[in-house]
């Protein structure tokens, strides 16, 4: 290793989990085997269509809601930690199973508050489109600090959910997270969670944009679409919860 290449590598992690060998791929693959923006967006469209199909099943057979959630969760873990290369087969199954789960959840909320589902769908896609416009135009610039703030926010929310989940085994829970708690504090918390989930969308856009720019392998189109779906599903659930809190007032 020459002195200059040693200097260029200074301060960079040698952990293979962080680099995943993408440095070897970037720009060296044939054009047809590289990730493109077109491919990632089309694949997101396919995943959305599968999610809607799953939702139709979950809406009509609510008993499948829990199995759908469990299968979706396992598939998400497999895609993230085991095989990004196989995202082409795991991501569609993930979208379908999570769609079944969302269909059941949406039916539950719809039975409580009439018309809440279409409001949540409209707002979710509205946020998606407006943030995409802001990202593409350069109005929102994701930086390392931005990423750190979002990661801290996601970590905090995860801890809150975990504490609430563990407390639910003992017959209690965090009332602020309850979907029928219409207090200002509770609505404020939901609003903050929606903001963090929206910021995750910006990070996903940047991931796809950079992946296409660097010419990552084709399977990363599926992975990019998958990560966008994960964020969209989370955002939809949080908007559903926020709307139900507002309606409970």
């Amino acid at each position, binding site marked *: 290793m020459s002195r*200059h290449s040693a200097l*260029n590598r200074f301060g*960079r*992690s040698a952990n293979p989990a*962080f*680099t995943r060998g*993408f*440095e070897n791929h*970037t720009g060296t693959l044939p054009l047809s085997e590289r990730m493109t*923006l*077109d491919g*990632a*967006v089309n694949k*997101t*469209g396919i995943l*959305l269509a599968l999610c809607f199909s799953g939702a139709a099943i979950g809406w009509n057979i609510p008993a499948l809601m829990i199995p759908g959630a469990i299968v979706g969760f396992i598939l998400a873990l497999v895609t993230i930690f085991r095989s990004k290369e196989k995202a082409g087969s795991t991501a569609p199954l993930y979208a379908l199973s999570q769609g079944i789960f969302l269909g059941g959840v949406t039916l539950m909320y719809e039975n409580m508050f009439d*018309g809440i589902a*279409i*409001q949540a*769908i*409209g*707002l*979710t*896609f*509205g946020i*998606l*489109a*407006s943030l*995409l*416009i802001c*990202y*593409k*135009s*350069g109005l929102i*610039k*994701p*930086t*390392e600090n*931005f*990423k750190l703030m979002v990661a801290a926010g996601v970590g905090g929310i995860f801890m809150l959910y975990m504490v609430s989940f563990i407390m639910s085994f003992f017959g209690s829970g965090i009332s602020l997270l309850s979907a029928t708690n219409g207090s200002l504090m509770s609505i404020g918390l939901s609003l903050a969670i929606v903001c963090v989930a929206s910021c995750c969308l910006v*990070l996903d856009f*940047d*991931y796809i*944009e*950079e*992946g296409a*720019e*660097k010419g*990552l392998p084709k399977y990363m189109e599926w992975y990019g679409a998958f990560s966008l779906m994960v964020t969209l599903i989370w955002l939809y659930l949080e908007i559903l919860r926020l709307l139900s809190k507002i309606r409970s007032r």
Partner: protein
Amino acid sequence: MNTIFFSVLAIFSLFVFMNLGKIKASKKQTDRDDRINRFGSRKARGSQKKTHSTIIEGEAEVIDDEDKK
């Protein structure tokens, strides 16, 4: 009315996503020095323009005023 408004919003937003998503982001977004370095191969914009190092390699010499005279 409510349903129609949110349905139109969802369809229009999806249309925007499917079309705008395929367009490359603006230069203002992509040509930044403070972008997230995910794949570990980005160098600072200033250093990419340089074709060679500005470090002058060689041995240091002591300049003595006495020698000049």
